[in-house]
């Protein structure tokens, strides 16, 4: 048993934390959002240059790390800084799917993903599909030429990606795991309408409407109708990423609140002198430590057999959702009005923490799934 980071990971963490401390203040994030930019392209380029994208891929894939603990480490720092750069959409989701399923030709994309020159996105969610991964109804028909028709919603980074990986149904009915395929679709493809919007927590997302978009069969990623397992795998990795990101954001919210309790004077003393607030801060600290352990659990089981891994996916996502809501609500409450202002960084961290519950399944979804997976294992 050893809970310390390896030397390489400690260096990576140190480098990334210093990079964000030096270059990524709250004012920068607010300015980017106020100017309507989806993210800061200079920061994106620097992250690629520092090898942060490469840290999310294995050596065989052209990176240098790529294990669960590497993903957790990188995303915790992104969360701590409040970064909105599209590492989740382009590297974890898009790049991860190409790495898992791509032909040699398709894998050539990875070098450009890791260098940051190109961006990918994964379009999976559809109107009403909610959190069930098998709810795919976007229609794919054809032989040498495939025609795609339907709508994809909440596509993270969809408007900034050069290529979108799109799930579509080639056989079966919505709700069937079999029959789902993936296709690489250029964002500029004829018949593809991309409508960008910003999310409550400051990320760029898009709605994709496909009105008979045609791609060659060579655009298919993996075997026809057999993409479900890869989608579940990549969702496990993405779930780890957002859980670690939530953890980093919680650490920032916690640190801001501790400082505030010491500095804010009311009734002639720092409000941290009031026992009612001290006990709540103590509870909050305990829960954040639980959140850290949940992230460690998932990171350590990311490559375990499916039944074990998925139990950890649901356990961790459920716990992060519960603790996240508590941390967000309590840190705002302990701050009072200032915690609710856009000008103050806390409200940005809490928005991200809360809205992560809406990605890849919320507290209730994963509680039910955890129970179900337990029954299947018995």
């Amino acid at each position, binding site marked *: 048993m050893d809970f310390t980071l390896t030397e390489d990971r400690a260096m990576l963490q140190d480098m990334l934390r210093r990079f964000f401390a030096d270059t990524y203040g709250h004012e920068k994030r607010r300015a980017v959002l106020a100017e309507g930019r989806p993210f800061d392209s200079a920061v994106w380029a620097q992250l690629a240059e520092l090898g942060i994208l490469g840290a999310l891929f294995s050596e065989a894939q052209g990176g240098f790390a790529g294990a669960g603990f590497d993903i957790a480490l990188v995303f915790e720092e992104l969360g701590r800084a409040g970064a909105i750069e599209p590492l989740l959409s382009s590297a974890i989701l898009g790049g991860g799917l190409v790495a898992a399923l791509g032909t040699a030709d398709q894998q050539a994309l990875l070098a450009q993903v890791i260098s940051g020159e190109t961006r990918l996105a994964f379009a999976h*969610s*559809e*109107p*009403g599909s*909610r*959190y*069930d991964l098998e709810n795919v109804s976007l229609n794919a028909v054809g032989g040498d030429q495939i025609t795609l028709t339907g*709508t994809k*919603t*909440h596509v993270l980074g969809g408007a900034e990606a050069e290529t979108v990986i799109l799930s579509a149904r080639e056989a079966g009915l919505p*709700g069937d795991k079999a029959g789902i395929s993936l296709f690489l679709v250029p964002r500029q493809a004829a018949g593809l309408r991309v*409508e960008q*919007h*910003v*999310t*409550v*927590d400051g990320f760029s*997302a898009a*709605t994709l*409407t496909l009105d008979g978009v045609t791609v060659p069969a060579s655009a298919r990623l993996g075997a026809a109708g057999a993409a479900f397992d890869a989608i579940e795998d990549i969702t496990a990795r993405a779930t780890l990423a957002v859980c670690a990101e939530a953890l980093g954001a919680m650490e920032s919210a916690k640190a801001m609140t501790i400082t505030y309790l010491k500095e804010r*004077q*009311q*009734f002639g003393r720092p409000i941290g002198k*009031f026992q*009612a*607030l001290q006990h709540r801060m103590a509870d909050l600290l305990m829960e954040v430590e639980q959140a850290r352990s949940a992230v460690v659990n998932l990171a350590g089981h990311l490559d375990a057999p499916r039944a074990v891994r998925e139990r950890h996916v649901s356990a961790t996502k459920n716990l992060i959702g519960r603790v996240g*809501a508590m941390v967000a*609500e309590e840190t*705002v*409450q302990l701050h*009072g*009005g200032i915690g*609710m*202002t*856009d*000008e103050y960084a806390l*409200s940005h961290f*809490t*928005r991200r923490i*809360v*809205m992560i*519950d*809406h*990605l890849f399944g*919320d*507290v*209730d*979804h994963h*509680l*039910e799934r955890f129970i179900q997976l337990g029954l299947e294992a018995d």
Partner: protein
Amino acid sequence: MDLSYTAEQQAFRAEVRAFLAEALPKRLSEKVRLGKRLNKAEIEEWHAILNARGWLAPNWPAEFGGAEWDAVERQIFEEEACLAHAPRVVPFGLMMLAPVLLAFGSEAQKRHYLPRILSGEDWWCQGYSEPGAGSDLASVKTRAVRDGDEYVVNGQKTWTTLGQYANWIFCLVRTDTDCKPQQGISFLLIDMTSPGVTVRPITLIDGEAEVNEVFFDNVRVPTENLVGTENQGWTYAKYLLTHERTNIAGVGFSNAALATLKQVAANTLSGGRPLAQNPHFAARMAQVEIDLMAMRTTNLRVVSAAAKGQAPGAESSMLKIKGTQIRQELTSLLRRATGPDAMPFLPDYLEGGDNQMSGLPDHAPTAAPSYFNMRKLSIFGGSNEIQRGIISKAILEL
């Protein structure tokens, strides 16, 4: 013990319901139903409709155009108005300043200001909190120094709700610094068009600039704008806080929010069945409904005691805490029920525009912003921590 309403109260409820069905414009109730933001003109429109019916000032005496409803009638109106998705009546002039003027104001002040509140000529906002005086309200630092027949006011107020629409502000100002903090405060009415008043909007966590900072730089205020006696402002402020909070539990809002939540949960599919049938979600929804059922009765118990003339003390703190917990839980559940569709931030829609995103249900864009906005309930009007302090002080007597 009798839980039924009297025949008169039932008739009153029917009358309110009929009025709302007829007089409440669909345009406004649709915005309220979807959680969209009303603009100044829309709020004024609803005030004018209520005023024409004589119902804008439920607790004022008839002499000044009030409806003279008792606490139960007010509660009935509140419930019906919320269920019909009527806009909220902006309380600052009607429910907060007016009772203070009626109790402590001069005859001239009552005659001058009260009609202007009813007619909508004046829009009031509240100048209580300051950057250094939140929960510790008695530490207000905004200074008012007497200079002949004027006060010269310097300082800053904050969290001034809808101050951007207001032309008047009632303020707690410090008129004496050589005494205990509570004793040197006065209650002053300030014309916001006076030279030296600056209003700066504060954008909140939900993206809306609902509150403001108000700065006073050598603002000259006639001494006739002082309410009551100089240095007695704390008494008036406390009077306002303890006597005018019958709606603090927000039962009407919670009733309406629960109805919306049930409808969304019934119409949203999750794992192949309505979310309302997901045992985990259904349990949380049932739990808050059970709490609300008890809360309604707690509220009516306090309200009827108040109707018999007993001044609510710690009860009003209890109603605030429990009421805000229920309202916050309801918005949290609605956010969860909305699922991934809660993620897009659509400011144009929130301000009243159409929903132009394919496949997005109409309730979706306001779900997360409302959840974040409602965090304010446990912070403002005396944070829930302050309310717990009031309750424990009353029972422990230590």
